[in-house]
C-alpha cells in the first residue's frame, strides 16, 4: 500500500525556526502570509505554526485589523 500519500511533511513553526519572539501587528507584510485571500486567519494545520506562535499571530492580525492595517474577513 502506498503510504506517501497520507504522510504529511512535518511543518515547522517559522517563528520558532527564525527565533522570532515578538509578532508585530504593524508588520503587515509578515502577517499577510497568515491570512487567506478573503482575510481569514490561516489555521494552524495549514500554517504549521506552533500553538503559542499561532496565538501570537492571531492576536497580531486582530490588532492590525482594528487599526485598519489589514482588512476584516469578507463575508461569503
Amino acid at each position, binding site marked *: 500500500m502506498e503510504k506517501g500519500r497520507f504522510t504529511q511533511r512535518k511543518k515547522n513553526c517559522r517563528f520558532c525556526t527564525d527565533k*522570532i*519572539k*515578538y509578532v*508585530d*501587528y*504593524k*508588520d*503587515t*507584510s*509578515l502577517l*499577510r*502570509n497568515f491570512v487567506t485571500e478573503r482575510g481569514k486567519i490561516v489555521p494552524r494545520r495549514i500554517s504549521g505554526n506552533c500553538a503559542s506562535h499561532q496565538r501570537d499571530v492571531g492576536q497580531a492580525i486582530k*490588532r*492590525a*485589523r*482594528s*487599526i*485598519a*492595517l*489589514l*482588512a*476584516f474577513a469578507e463575508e461569503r
Partner: protein
Amino acid sequence: MQLYESIFIVRPTVTEEEVTKVVEKMKGVVEKNGGTLLQTENWGKRKLAYEVEKEKKGTYIIFRFKGDGKVINDLEHNYRMEDSIIKFLTVKPSKGDSGTLVMPSADEGRPFRSRSGHDREDRRWSESGKKAD
C-alpha cells in the same frame, strides 16, 4: 510604570501643520499625566485596509511611552474628542518586542520579507525621545 504603544489615524484632509498640532497636543496629554514619551513616529498618509468614517486614507501616528493607566484614559478621551482622529489603538508591547517600529509595506499581498520597510518616501519624520529610567 508600564510601556505602551499608542497608534492613531488622522483624517487625510487635515493639513500637515494641523497634524503637527494634534501630535503636540497628544504629547502634552501623555506628559501632563506623568508619562514619559520614548518614541514618536509619523508614517505619513497611508491607504486604509477599509473605509473609516468614509475616509480611504489616513495619517498614522505612533507613540511609545512609559506611564500608567491614567495616561491611557486621558489620552483615549482626548482621541475621542478630537474630530480629526478617526481611529486609535493602544497596546502593551510584549516582552520580546525589540522596540523597533516596523512600518508596514504599502503594497498588498507581498510575500514574506524581512523587517525592513524603512524606505518609504512618504515617511515624514521619526524621532527618539529621551530614555526613561
